């Protein structure tokens, strides 16, 4: 369209440039004011659920020795294991490979991810299969009748 200026008395190049600049920047500003709200709208606001640092994972009499359960820790699952010799360990139940949820296997005495056959030992260390990192371990406390799991302070 820039070559359309064949009318007689075509405007001087300076004025033409200025008009082009004004038109271009107003088009840009308009498009920005349309797409900025859309891009902001598409991103969901942070979820209202507080990522708490401690949670009651189980009651004291809930797990027999050599048993485990999945508990809610904020938005994500956690794994609480009662060891055969007594005592508890808690991990994030999210496999470090591709986010599947792991499970405790009583017979093998390990933590297994069914998605890609990843195996962790009872300390959460990745011992076989694709997982690249150990499971995040949580602190376990007994408080009265309850077992409380707490996120460890980030070192």
């Amino acid at each position: 369209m820039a070559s359309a200026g064949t009318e007689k008395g075509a405007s001087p190049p300076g004025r033409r440039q200025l008009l082009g600049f004004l038109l271009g920047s107003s088009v840009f500003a308009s498009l920005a004011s349309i797409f900025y709200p859309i891009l902001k709208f598409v991103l969901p606001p942070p979820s209202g659920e507080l990522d708490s640092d401690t949670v009651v994972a189980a009651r004291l009499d809930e797990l027999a020795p050599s048993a485990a359960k999945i508990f809610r820790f904020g938005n994500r699952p956690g794994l609480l294991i009662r060891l055969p010799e007594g005592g508890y360990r808690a991990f994030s139940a999210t496999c470090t490979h591709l986010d599947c949820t792991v499970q405790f296997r009583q017979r093998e005495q390990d933590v297994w991810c069914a998605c890609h056959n990843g195996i962790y030992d009872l300390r959460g260390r990745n011992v076989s299969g694709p997982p690249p990192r150990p499971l995040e371990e949580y602190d376990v406390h007994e408080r009265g009748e309850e077992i409380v799991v707490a996120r460890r302070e980030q070192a």
Partner: protein
Amino acid sequence: MTSALEQLRVWLEERFGHGLGDAIRKKQVPRHRHSLWYYLGGMTLFLFLIQVVTGILLLLYYRPSPGEAFESVQFIMTKVQFGWLIRGLHAWAANLLILVAMLHMFSAFFLKAYRKPRELTWITGCLLFFIFLGFGFSGYLLPWNELAFFATKVGTEMMAAVPFIGEWLLTVFRGGEEVTGATLTRFFGFHVAVFPALTTLVLGIHLFLVQQLGMSVPPSVERAHRQSGQPLRAHPFFPGFLLRDLIGWYIALGILAALAALDPWELGVKADPFVPTPAGIKPEWYFLFLFQTLKVIPARLLWIEGEQLAVMLFGVVALLWVLVPFLDRNPEGRSGRVFTAVGAVAVAYIIGMTVWAW
């Protein structure tokens, strides 16, 4: 830059043929003292596209169940960034869309744009208008607030008055005997799947016909040019007419954003089927004249119930309206004048009843 664009154009034309490019280059729009009305169709299309975009955005957060619908709209309005803007635009543009579509339809009516060979353009246009009313009616319920809930009860209750299939219609649209969560899910389905699909089809035919047949020139303008022997003035669609269209759309967008910002669409109170209907339940403004007609019609006329009479009347009038191109046999002569007069009475009736019901 230009040569790359040119290469792309050539590449595309080798595959799609020259048809589209030629059509755009050759398309002419007649120019006369009634030309302004030509812009209303494009404006309706623009508002519809706004509805498509904002509607898809709202779908990212909206949840169509009675336990969550109201809360999810509340979430959009209060928590999502620019959520108030997107919902406000959707609600305001819906109303403007109906208004502009109405103006477009009546301008086509009074300028006799429906006359041969544009009968199908008129019919598809009418169908689009009815679909838009369906969009409005179904969308009104989705926030699941008290006003919408009771307006939907009344609106669907009218379906029961349709002869023979009334009860069946009522059950199909409500998803049961009452307005419940089942109704919400159905209306949601109509609003985001059935009506959009229908619109795509009918709008495609409508736009194809407009391209195929070109713009209609009003009989009075045609006559004047026949008498003076001068050719009709016209200007190219691209870029002149399209740029004028763009200016109109730009202004419309500004008005919409201003309305959404200065007069945010209310959410109201969450619907509760077990509270009495609050006073002053009214449908959206574009249904008001129907609503008022219902109020005025006596409860019983001879052997017919008032509601049934009204529904049959609406149905017959709507059918006649769609069939106008076939009923007006001589648009430039006597019958044309009769139809203009009937149209004027219809407009006066709609405006009068709407003002009365306000």
